[in-house]
């Protein structure tokens, strides 16, 4: 990634942040929520490139969200930065532990086992009174370095925080995807055994990818929990995981910005669909997904890339 692109990214995000006070609050909340989904999808991209499709990413998403809710309730932690750090750590830790099992599997088995693990968490959350059962728990309003903005100020603060998270995730994930470990993903997808002949442990690499993606999912969950001010077991349900996979398909695994645009598109489609056809938003969502897979199988992000690739050469991209 060149300095120019980083500058451009920072300028776009900074512009968004500066525009926030002149934007309706509901739109800011929607974008914040979309960014939390985008963070999770960033993690999915890392796995996706290696040919792994987790149908249970909600496990880490919910872990992050519940970490925020419970840290506030049990230990009185209110600082947003600390809460997010805790959520990321917890999600990564869970992934590190289940990774010893999960990293041994590929393809549909990886998908199924990660689904099973997320459903275990769902089962525990639903039945456990201390964890709020089916109703979930409310999340107390967070503070930012001791400041306690309230009302619209809180929404802005969260939005700026989200922008900062998106920026760091973009830099971090792009750096990882460009590194040797990240570049090996395509090779793993094509032929794992050849990668092992290069002297690289694929299992360990998958374990690492899983942990990174879980950390991002935890961050997304934390942001969602703060933004909605509530967590419930639905966050661990397999339809939530399905939503993340949906956005990944929509956006394609080609680039990180596409993940966030895809997430934004997803939230907008969902909002419009719910408003227009209250009983039919799944129908619209399903149709969009179906059309995307059938006609733009590489995702909408691939359209941008293809355009760039067919444009006349202007030096290395």
């Amino acid at each position: 990634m060149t300095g120019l692109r980083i500058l451009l990214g920072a300028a776009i995000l900074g512009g968004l942040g500066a525009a926030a006070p002149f934007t309706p609050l509901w739109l800011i909340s929607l974008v914040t929520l979309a960014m939390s989904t985008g963070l999770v999808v960033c993690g999915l991209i890392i796995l996706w490139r290696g040919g792994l499709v987790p149908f249970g990413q909600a496990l880490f998403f919910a872990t992050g969200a519940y970490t925020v809710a419970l840290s506030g309730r049990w230990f009185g932690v209110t600082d947003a930065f600390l809460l997010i750090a805790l959520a990321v750590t917890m999600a990564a830790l869970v992934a590190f532990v289940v990774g010893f099992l999960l990293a041994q599997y590929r393809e549909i088995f990886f998908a199924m086992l990660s689904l099973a693990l997320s459903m275990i968490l769902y089962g525990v959350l639903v039945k456990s009174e201390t964890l709020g059962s089916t109703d979930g728990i409310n999340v107390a309003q967070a503070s930012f370095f001791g400041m306690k903005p309230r009302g619209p100020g809180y929404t802005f603060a969260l939005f700026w925080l989200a922008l900062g998270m998106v920026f760091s995730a973009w830099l971090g994930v792009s750096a990882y995807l460009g590194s040797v470990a990240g570049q090996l993903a395509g090779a793993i997808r094509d032929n794992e055994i050849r990668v092992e002949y290069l002297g690289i442990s694929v299992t360990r690499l998958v374990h690492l990818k899983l942990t990174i993606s879980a950390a991002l999912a935890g961050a997304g969950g934390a942001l969602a929990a703060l933004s909605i001010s509530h967590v419930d077991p639905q966050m661990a349900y397999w339809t939530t995981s399905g939503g993340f996979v949906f956005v990944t398909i929509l956006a394609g695994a080609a680039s990180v910005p596409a993940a966030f645009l895809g997430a934004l598109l997803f939230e907008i489609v969902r909002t419009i669909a719910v408003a227009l056809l209250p009983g039919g938003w799944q129908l619209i969502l399903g149709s969009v997904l179906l059309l995307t897979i059938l006609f733009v199988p590489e995702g909408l992000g691939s359209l941008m890339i293809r355009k760039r690739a067919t444009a006349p050469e202007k030096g290395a991209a």
Partner: protein
Amino acid sequence: MITVIAIVTDGLVYAAWLFVVAIGLTLIFGVMKILNVAHGAFYAFGAYAAATAIGLYFDRGWPVVGGYLAIATAAIAIGLLMGYILERVFLRRVYGKDEVVVVLITYALFLILEDVLILIWGTDGRSAYQPYTEAGSFTVGGLPLSVYDIGLVGFAALLAIAASYTIKKTTFGRLLTAVIYDRETAAAFGVDVSRVYTVTFLVGAVLGALGGALTAPKISVTPGLGVEVIVLAFAVVAIGGMGSMEGALVGALIVGLFRAGAVHLIPQLELFSIYAVMALVLVFRPQGLFSRAQPRKI
């Protein structure tokens, strides 16, 4: 003692139901390599179609026996209709694509069908208890047993025998086995793979709808009942080995008994127990209990 009997009978009834649902799923996966999420929609449509049929039939006061026929007819009709449309219009286009991509197609279809269901039948729940209550019940050792439930277990057992017979002894079954083992070689020997696919998908769809239809009299039929089923059926199929009929039977028994055990002994762990068993089995046998290990491609 009575708890043990209760666990076993409940477990068997639950396993019978799971088996009917899971065998359709595993059949489609075994032959077509499609993990069909839309199976949950077959189930839900089957349940609604049966509930409607039961309502229409019993309102007229016709003999009870015909009611069971009405359930079966409704399920078979809706299963054939949906299976045909889905296979011809959508799946046909994606044969040979990545397994995961096909899963997502069926996931999209499932989302769409969930809402189509609501558009057709509305959001109100329906009850169609007549076949269940009319069948009556008796008590064994102080434990009430419903005749309908026993019939369900019997039906599942018959289904298992019929499936095993069809696959091992009939021409179509042998063609099926050939396709399961190696699609390309089977095609090279002149097996009409495309027809085998269509028939398989239709049979799978009918079985899914039957699973729903047989459950309809026992529950209140409400929207969203397909979601839970599909995840459970996945667990069963994953435990048994994807694509294996014996696996579906054993998986259904394991999940059924474990769940019944959890419900009677530690109700908090009901859902947890099912997936914990699944995770445990997959730790030791990643391909499930009855599946062949795949050779590694170099």
